[in-house]
């Protein structure tokens, strides 16, 4: 074979170069890399009344996700740090985080005898 082969950057390398580290600012530990955190799911769901037998409502609670392109409220666990559950508002398209707080403050405030 003759001629030269034009050198091209493989698409994988482009993706790797453009990859940015996602930092989550834990309210206790401060800014930490995303590897310390575990995603715990959609925090916008409302569980139906446990006494309810409404199949449609339970099906929607268990399976339906809105998957919005934009702001989303979700649970994260800081497993590699203070081990607290957090509620984070994250942009699903850009990963920009607009708010972080302890889940217990939002979910169990006012309950007696809760763990810290």
């Amino acid at each position, binding site marked *: 074979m003759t001629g030269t082969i034009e050198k091209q950057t493989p698409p994988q390398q482009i993706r790797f170069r453009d990859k940015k580290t996602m930092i989550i600012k834990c309210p206790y*530990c401060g800014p930490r890399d995303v590897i310390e955190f575990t995603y715990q799911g959609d925090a916008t769901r409302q569980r139906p009344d446990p006494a309810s037998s409404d199949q449609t409502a339970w099906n929607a609670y268990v399976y339906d996700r809105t998957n919005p392109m934009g702001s989303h409220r979700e649970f994260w666990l800081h497993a590699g740090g*203070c081990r607290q559950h957090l509620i984070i508002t994250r942009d699903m398209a850009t990963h920009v985080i607009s708010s972080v707080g302890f889940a217990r403050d939002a979910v169990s405030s006012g309950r007696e005898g809760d*763990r810290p």
Partner: protein
Amino acid sequence: MAEPQSPLGHTFVPGDHGNSAGGIGLVLTERNDVSIVQVTAWRGTIPAILAAISDVTGLNVPDKPGAGRSAGEKSAFGFSPGRYFIVAPSDDLEERLRKAIPLETGTIIDLTHGRTAIRIKGPWSEWVLSKLFAIDFSEHGFPVGFGRATLHHDIHTNIQRIDAETFDLYVFRTFARSFWQTLGHAAAEVGYRVE
């Protein structure tokens, strides 16, 4: 009482290692003479827990994230809301904390046999630890006395800064030998002494 055995075993080799011809950048020691106890407050009992820690150890830990104190061989620091590591060279540390902290105030877990305490001291300590943990080790971001809970290769570690160039690391006992070897590899370039 049974004599605790070091999990570091044959990997604990006193003497100079790595690039020690260029000077000793770090001194590594295992603190195997201390008791390690975790204290956890209930919601609203943090001030009572801090007062009890002060009564038992003499260390006044401020009520703010990660804050701690150390004096001599004694240490205390927060690593999670309402959760504290208490370390002291006394066999009855757990018993004394249990007397000072009733169940209504908080809970106590003796971690002495579950953790290995490693001290890393020297002018290159920030440099070497930065190879292992993705947190800010500068004195501005990690002040003296403060504690951190973080990961090294997915393995949990508690870290407290003792002074400008000294850190205490608390690693899971079953991972301690592996961690000790990794620490040695990370410290080889600056030369280190095991004591």
